[in-house]
């Protein structure tokens, strides 16, 4: 066994047994048990757990809306609800899932929890801002949910004007809620950027940061730069809806397409806000479970930044059929291809990481397989859209729905579940049942495919999205999709059951059950309140360095 502290901590059993210091350094979970000590906690780990509770709740709400939508689409005519309710349901599914689940999920939960641990810091740079961002999110959520209960909204989550300024449904509170949620996103982003810049422990240089940190850094840059524009646009729509400014109203000279430009200037990068953290999680998971340094560390780190940068200039590919000039369309199309290239680099490097590794096919790795699959197919269909001419028949059909559920939702859910399982022992000090983990992972991946592959085909057939009723020829595939959605929901129920069980009755996990050499495992699990007991670990090696002996001859590059 090597004498280096980092390697000692990296192997199980080498960490001082938590009980030996129990009186002095209780884990963050039991350091203060009052309700107040949780609700007003400035500890990034507790804030992360509170985020986990809320985003799971929002995920449940959004999931119920999704099931309602899928059930309604079982038959070509009305099935269980009327058209107005259906229009509200798919709008709410989008709004809840995007603004309350996908955007805050991985940064809010795992970013908060892991970022300081991975940087060897005691907390994020602005702990109070961190807590505030959670409560800002909840304030926005409450306002939005109040609006959903009192009327709901039927515009679709894209809020296209002039429909959104004319509809009689309750647009204002929901958009205002989303506006406030934007501030939470900005606050988190600022916090993470500053943390990454200023809180790195001695020894962690920029190119020794775990790739999850790189991904969070790129995500935060997008959050900080894009969200204000969305905030302004949402405010304008609210104002337009309430006071009739006429700013997007064609009968007063306003231009509804300008709204689309401003909206997609945020919402296209927002896609990367959702999916970059997933890429980050997966870079950690694939290293940990194949016990390999990441293949092409810099390539993955820079491609995250590349996606963040190019993502800002590709928004026009949402508007190929809105009367945009042909030249603009060409520019946006080429830039879209670049995003595809950056993603492809990541995919190749993840697969390369497994090369000469030592794969342990545990639940997080199962999710990694699903993730790889969704990213490849979701990404390739995205590039296909980028050809501009294929976008013409596919635009606003179910092909789009299936495409973004694959790349944005599929990849993110896979990463969220992988992260939850990989870091479950880190966060709670408990272990879940591996067998059930694999079963539910299989069900979720299969269910996801069964739900969305029929939707790709529906899109090819030409079924437009947001249809309450549809011509009969679309029915078979819709039934298949609904059946798949049920399977998917069933998979999630199983996961919820065994994870809850593990939380309460699960057997105690060791400090590093995966024998991972990620930086976040260099402390106890669950960590004490200020993350480290005694002298801070040293960071001699890069993260996920599994070579023994330490200074082995580095073989030639492949």
């Amino acid at each position: 066994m090597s004498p280096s502290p980092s390697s000692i901590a990296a192997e199980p059993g080498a960490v001082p047994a938590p009980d030996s210091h129990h009186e002095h350094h209780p884990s963050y979970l039991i350091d203060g048990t009052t309700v107040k000590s949780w609700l007003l906690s400035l500890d990034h780990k507790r804030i992360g757990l509170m985020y986990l509770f809320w985003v799971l709740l929002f995920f449940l709400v959004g999931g119920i809306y999704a099931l309602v939508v899928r059930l309604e689409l079982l038959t070509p005519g009305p099935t269980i609800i009327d058209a107005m309710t259906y229009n509200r349901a798919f709008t709410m599914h989008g709004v809840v899932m995007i603004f309350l689940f996908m955007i805050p999920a991985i940064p809010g939960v795992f970013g908060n929890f892991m970022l300081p641990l991975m940087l060897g810091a005691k907390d994020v740079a602005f702990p109070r801002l961190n807590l505030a961002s959670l409560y800002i999110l909840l304030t926005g959520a409450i306002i939005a949910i109040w609006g959903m209960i009192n009327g709901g909204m039927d515009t679709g989550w894209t809020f296209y004007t002039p429909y959104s300024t004319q509809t009689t449904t309750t647009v204002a509170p929901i958009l205002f809620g989303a506006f406030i949620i934007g501030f939470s996103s900005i606050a988190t982003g600022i916090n993470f950027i500053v943390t990454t810049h200023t809180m790195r422990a001695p020894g962690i240089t920029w190119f020794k940061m775990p790739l999850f940190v790189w991904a969070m850094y790129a995500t935060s840059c997008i959050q900080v730069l894009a969200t204000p524009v969305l905030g302004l646009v949402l405010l304008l729509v609210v104002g337009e809806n309430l006071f009739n400014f006429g700013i997007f109203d064609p009968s007063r000279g306003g231009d509804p397409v300008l709204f689309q430009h401003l909206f997609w200037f945020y919402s296209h990068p927002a896609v990367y806000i959702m999916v970059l953290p997933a890429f980050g999680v997966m870079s950690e998971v694939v290293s940990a479970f194949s016990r390999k340094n990441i293949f092409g560390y810099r390539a993955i780190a820079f491609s995250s930044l590349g996606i963040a940068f190019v993502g800002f200039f590709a928004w026009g590919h949402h508007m190929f059929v809105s009367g945009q000039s042909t030249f603009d369309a060409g520019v946006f199309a080429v830039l879209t291809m670049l995003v595809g290239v950056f993603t492809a680099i990541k995919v190749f490097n993840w697969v390369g990481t497994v090369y000469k590794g030592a794969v342990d096919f545990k639940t997080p790795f199962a999710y990694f397989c699903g993730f790889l699959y969704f990213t490849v197919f979701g990404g390739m269909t995205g590039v296909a859209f980028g050809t501009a001419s294929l976008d013409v028949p596919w635009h606003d059909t179910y092909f789009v729905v299936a495409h973004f559920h694959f790349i944005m939702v599929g990849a993110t859910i896979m990463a969220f579940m992988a992260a939850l399982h990989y870091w479950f022992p880190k966060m709670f000090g408990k272990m879940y049942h591996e067998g059930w983990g694999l079963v539910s992972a299989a069900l979720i991946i299969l269910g996801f495919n069964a739900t969305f592959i029929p939707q790709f085909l529906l899109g090819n057939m030409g079924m437009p999205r947001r249809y309450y009723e549809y011509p009969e020829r679309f029915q078979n595939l819709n039934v298949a999709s609904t059946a798949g959605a049920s399977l998917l929901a069933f998979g999630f129920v199983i996961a919820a059951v065994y994870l809850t069980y593990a939380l309460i009755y699960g057997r105690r996990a060791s400090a590093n059950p995966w024998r991972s050499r990620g930086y976040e495992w260099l402390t106890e699990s669950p960590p004490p309140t200020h993350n480290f007991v005694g002298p801070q670990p040293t960071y001699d090696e890069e993260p996920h360095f599994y070579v023994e002996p330490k200074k082995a001859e580095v073989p030639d590059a492949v």
Partner: protein
Amino acid sequence: MQSNPTADAVGAPPPPKLAMHFASLEVQHHAARLGMWLFLATEILLFAGLFTLYAGYRFLFPEAWAAGSRSLDLTMGTINTIVLITSSFTAAMAVHYAKEAKNKMVVLMFVLTLAMAGAFLVIKGFEYSHKLHVGALPGFRYHYDAIQLPGAPLFFTVYWLSTGLHAFHVIVGMCVLAWITTKAAKNQFSYHNYTAVELGSMYWHLVDLVWIFLFPMLYLV
């Protein structure tokens, strides 16, 4: 770092507090400044959305934009610009004095800044009341007879939105500066501890900067 600044007559200011999770005071100060810069970036982008609207509609309705721009009161706008730039200067001076631990001067400079901010709002108020009076209002409430061009209501929508959002920032900035002024009155700032003054002043410069963009866009060109 070790230089001993001239203590104020009231007594030596207290040393700054180091939060437990920062490595050193410099890091803490650096983090605060970096955070502020990022926040200012988001503010600029917030206004950038409005600038885009301005540019888009100016392109669509050049005549209405020219007429609308001419109808604004250039004198009041110019006075306001001068007032705001001067207030930025006093805010910068406050940082200078805070570094020297001259807390009384900090208070004086911020009070001057606040007074000029107030003057800015009063002048803006006169402009607004004139617009209200003649009916140069946003959207369908527009009934300004002197300019009846397509797109004219949009010009005034953009005018009200951008100046209104800016005025809101002025008010927020005033609250922040007033709060820092009370801290300065308690003699809290010194060479080691002037982050609050610096950040407040940065925010004020942003408010000023936005106006420096708005003024030529709306009044001059």
